[in-house]
Structures are given as structure tokens and as C-alpha cells.
């Protein structure tokens, strides 16, 4: 990696620190909450950017992976996990230290799995599910791929919505914080706010650096070849099926990590996180960010989610993302960070003034 590529990442790090210092100094550090959440959502966007922008495979079901990570965190950090085991097994797990038994504020028994175990489980489940679904799904193209991933996402949504251990329509609340280091928790406690902000952003920047290196490597070139033409890539000796599957799994794990930490940070998760609208929202952000543009996706992922979380879009929240999708894909399918976008807008205004039978 050359110095020139270190510089933007270092700048981003500096901006992240600057924001925290400014907000803490001016007493507006409540904004850090939304910035932390935006970072977790942006993590999903980065993973999807790799899949859609570089490998050219659309996924309309990424919210399901986010929810998969989130629900694993939620079930394993609340008393819902007692539904998983019989009393004897539960006691044995507690003795082995695989489940921590404590008492909550009201003196009732409170079970939770240690952080490393629940995080490991979340990642393992996501890898297994994305692997199992990815093998058949990624053989499809175009409409069929979009509908298959949409169908998969909706099935998981229905399962979260209709199953007792996932809290049905209410979701799971009162998820206990996740202990990263002794005394440092990912959770909603105000005293941990600054730590949570930095934790989320270090995770996001780490993911960015990883992906920046990945797309510049042999793998990245292979992915772009697949995007260009799968047959040609195959003829060049690229194992297209394996690359697509690996990228699908990686992007699913990114989404699940976002969901895992977000659930601990928020202290809860509901079935709407797995809904179609959420998946569409991630696709919209990747489209606005410019498909094969990690920096653009990161920027839009943070900005749009921040605006949405602060409630700037009001009751038009979903409509904004739908409209963005149409406008971007109609006018600037390569994203807005391009010169051609401006000439396209001129072209559209010209045609809209006389749209009939040109």
C-alpha cells in the first residue's frame, strides 16, 4: 500500500476524532448516538457495495443478514436463550461458563452468553445461512436473482415475525450490553457513548481498509471481470462461482456484524429491521454512492442514515429512498460522483420539455 492510499483513510480518522471533540465540547454529543448507528448501517452498505458494485450481483435481502446478526445477539443476551435449552442443559452450560448467570435490577435471574460466544455464534450462523442460500441463488441472474434474494429476505422476515423466541411482532428488547474490554461496553449507557462512537467507527474504517485492499488485489480484478462479463471471466480461468459465493458470504458477515453491534447498542431489535424496505434502502444507498465506489458508498451510507435517524425526512422516510433510487438509476446509474451526471440532467430536462414521440 502506497502513502497516497493511506492519506484518505488517515484523513477520515482525523475527521472522526474532530467530530467527537467538537460535539463533546459544544454539548451536542447526543449526535454521537446517531453517528454510531449510521456507522453500523454503513457497514452493511460497504458489504453490499462489494457485492453489487464490484461483483455485479444484486441482493434484495441484505436486511435479513443484518437482522440475523441482530437477533442472534438479542436471543443470546436476554432470557430468551432459556427457551433454547432444557433446565438441565442450561445448568450445565452455566457451570462450564458458557452462559453467565447474574441477577437483574429486580433480583430475578438473568442469563446471557459471553460476548465472544454470542459474536462467534452470530458470525457462524450468518456464514452457514449465506453459504447455503448463496450456492443456489448465485446461479441466477438479473430478475431471477433479485426475486430470489427478495424471497429469501421475506422468508426470514416472516420467521422473525412469527416465531416466539424472536419475540414475534414486538421484537426483543432489554438486550444487555456486550462487554468488549473490562469496563467498556457496547450498549446504550450514556457514560459509554464516546467509547461506542469510536468502537463503531474503528470497525467501519477497518472494514473500509480491508475492502480497499481487497478490490485492488487479484480478487478485486477478478470481481470486476465477472461484473464485465461472466463468460469472459470464466474463460480467463476465474472460478466465477467460487468468487461470487465468497463475496456473498463476506458481505453477509459485514451485515450481520452491523446488526450484532447495533442491537447491543440500541438494546433491542424488531422484525422491521429484516423488512423489504430496509433491504431496498441499502440498495438505494449503494446506488447513490456509485455502485463500485467504496468511498462514495461509505459517505452516502453515513450521511443518508444520519439524516434518516435524525428524522429529517419525516413521514417521507421510505419515499425519499424510493425516489432516490429512481432518480439515480434513471439519471446517473454510475452514481452521483461523476462528471457525466450533469450532462444527463441537462438531457433529461430537455426531453421532459417535449417527451412525446421524439
Amino acid at each position, binding site marked *: 500500500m502506497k502513502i497516497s492510499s493511506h492519506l484518505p483513510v488517515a484523513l477520515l480518522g482525523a475527521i472522526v476524532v474532530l467530530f467527537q471533540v467538537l460535539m463533546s465540547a459544544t454539548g451536542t454529543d447526543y449526535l454521537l448516538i446517531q453517528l454510531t448507528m449510521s456507522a453500523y448501517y454503513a457497514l452493511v452498505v460497504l458489504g453490499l457495495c462489494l457485492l453489487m458494485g464490484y461483483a455485479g450481483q444484486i441482493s434484495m435481502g441484505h436486511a435479513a443478514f443484518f437482522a440475523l446478526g441482530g437477533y442472534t445477539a438479542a436471543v443470546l443476551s436476554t432470557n430468551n436463550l432459556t427457551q433454547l435449552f432444557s433446565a438441565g442443559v442450561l445448568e450445565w452450560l452455566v457451570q462450564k461458563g458458557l452462559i453467565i448467570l447474574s441477577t437483574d435490577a429486580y433480583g430475578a435471574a438473568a442469563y446471557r452468553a459471553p460476548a465472544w460466544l454470542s459474536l462467534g455464534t452470530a458470525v457462524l450462523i450468518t456464514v452457514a445461512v449465506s453459504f447455503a442460500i448463496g450456492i443456489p441463488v448465485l446461479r441466477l441472474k438479473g430478475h431471477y436473482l433479485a426475486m430470489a434474494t427478495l424471497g429469501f429476505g*421475506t*422468508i426470514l422476515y416472516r420467521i422473525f415475525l412469527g416465531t416466539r423466541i424472536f419475540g*414475534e411482532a414486538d421484537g426483543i428488547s432489554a438486550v444487555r450490553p456486550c462487554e468488549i474490554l473490562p469496563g467498556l461496553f457496547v450498549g446504550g449507557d450514556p457514560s459509554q457513548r464516546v467509547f461506542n462512537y469510536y468502537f463503531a467507527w474503528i470497525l467501519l474504517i477497518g472494514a473500509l481498509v480491508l475492502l480497499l485492499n481487497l478490490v485492488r488485489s487479484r480478487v478485486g480484478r477478478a470481481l470486476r471481470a465477472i461484473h464485465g462479463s461472466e463468460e469472459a471471466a470464466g474463460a480467463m480461468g476465474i472460478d466465477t462461482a467460487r468468487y461470487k459465493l465468497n463475496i456473498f458470504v463476506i458481505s453477509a458477515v459485514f451485515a450481520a456484524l452491523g446488526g450484532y453491534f447495533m442491537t447491543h447498542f440500541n438494546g433491542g431489535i424488531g422484525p422491521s429491521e429484516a423488512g423489504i424496505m430496509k433491504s431496498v434502502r441499502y440498495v438505494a444507498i449503494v446506488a447513490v454512492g456509485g455502485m463500485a465506489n467504496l468511498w462514495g458508498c461509505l459517505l452516502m451510507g453515513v450521511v443518508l442514515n444520519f439524516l434518516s435517524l435524525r428524522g429529517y425526512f419525516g413521514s417521507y422516510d*421510505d419515499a425519499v429512498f*424510493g425516489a432516490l*433510487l429512481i432518480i439515480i438509476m434513471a439519471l446517473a446509474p454510475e452514481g452521483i460522483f461523476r462528471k457525466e451526471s450533469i450532462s444527463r440532467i441537462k438531457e433529461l430536462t430537455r426531453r421532459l420539455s417535449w*417527451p412525446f414521440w421524439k
Partner: protein
Amino acid sequence: MSPDNIVQYLISGITAGSIYAIVAIGFNIIYNTTGIINFAQGEFLMLGGMISITLAQFMPLPAAILAAVIITAGVGFLIELVFIRWIDSPSVLRMIIITIGLSIVIREAALHIWDEKVRALPYFTGNEITSIEILGARFSPQVLWVLGTCAIIVIILNIFYYYTLTGKSMRACAANRTAASLCGINIKNMVSLSFTLSAAIGALAGCVISPITQTQYDCGATLAIKGFTAAIFGGLGSSTGAIVAGLLIGVIEAASISIIPLAYKDAITLTLLLGILFFRPGGIFGSREAAALKEY
């Protein structure tokens, strides 16, 4: 399941299934002329239902339904004119995303024009408790309206496709766009027409089903997914396949309620969709050899 129940399940399955078939035919009309899957197809049903419910307060029911169909057809025409017509050689990914965006914007617009309340048109004949008995199963006369309307839509569409010049031109587009345009067919107009037609059919289906299933601003997405399942199941582009597959899916879904919890009802159709996509992407009636040559 007792014999009575079987008839009951069959009738409710066929009713829902005939609507899925109409949605699937709507998908096919647009797919045949453009090669695009219009993800906003379900929203046409919602719009038809919602507009007719509003208009029915001011005018007689048949007039309200007619007006709703015309307005929705206009919306379909406008969508094609503004968003599809001027894009020259659209990639599939781009068109998927645009139509998904459209479906969301239409849905959100409906939420703001109307509200999130569940509404319904009045029953065309009789009321909620009127029922007809056949073989021990009781059902509403509205079921006959649904089945009759769907049958008429299919018959008229077939007459249109096979006995009118415009219909034949549309079939020519489906067969080979370049050849059709060399024969002097204006392909862009055919695409506009297919969006208009598809919206009109969707709106009519949305009206007749409204008394039974009721209409809400977000009811389009589920209908679209099931309609798409029917379209794939029957082989994308095939009308006969869509009808058979639609009815079959309706019956499977109705029967599944007696076995698994209602909460997972939609998951059944979706699992079926994934199964078809994985194993027979050409549909149940398509030949395996032909399917092997096509790209999915």
C-alpha cells in the same frame, strides 16, 4: 380435512389463485414487449382498489370501477413515458432498481393520499353475510365475480392478441424486437401500450378482489411476489402457464393453512418460488432442453 373442507379450501384457493394469475399475466404483458419485470405490478392492484373505493362514495359502483381502471391505466402510461421510454439500452439491474423505486414511491404516495387504514369496496351482490352453498361449502357470491372477471380478462386478452392488428404487433415485439421494428412496428408505442394494458388489468383485478381481501396502501408487494411466483412457475411469458400456476399456488397456499401456522403462510409461497428458481427456472411447462439454453 373432511370432504366439506376440501371443497372450501379449493374455492378459497382458486379465488386467491385467480388474482395471482392476473398479476402474473400483468407481469407477462410487460415482460414480453420489454424484457423487463415490472416490480411495481402489485401497486396497480392497490391503486385500482383504493381509487375505486374513494370514487364509490360519489358515483355508482360500476362507474367508480371504470374510472379507477382508466386512472390507473393512465398512471401506467405515465410511468412508461417518464421513466422507461427515454432510456435507450437499459441494463436489467438498472430497470429492476427503477421499478422497485417506483413501487415504493407509489406505495408511499398512497399512504399520504389516503392513510394506513384498511378499506374495502362494498360487495357487488348482496353483502358480507350473503352466501351460496355448493357441495357443502359456503362462499360469497363475490367469489363468482372474481372468477368471472378473471376469465373475461383472459378471453378478451386472447382475442386482442390474436385477432387485432395492434395485438399481433405486440406479439411480434415479444417474438423479436428488431424484426418487428423492421416491419414498421413502433416498438416504443407498443411498450407504452403494454404498461397501460398491464396497469388497467391490474386495477380491475384490484377492484374485484377488494371486498374479499380488502385494500391497504401496502398490499401490493405481497401480491406482486405471489404473482411473480405464478409467472415463473408457469414459465415467464406464457399466459396459459400463468393461469394454471396461479390457481395451483392459490390452492397450495389455502391447503397449507390447515397444516402450518397462518403466520408462515407467505413463507410457503416464497419457498415454492425459491424451489422453482433453483430447480426449474424455465417453469413447470417449459422444456428442460430449452431452459438449459436460456440465461437465468
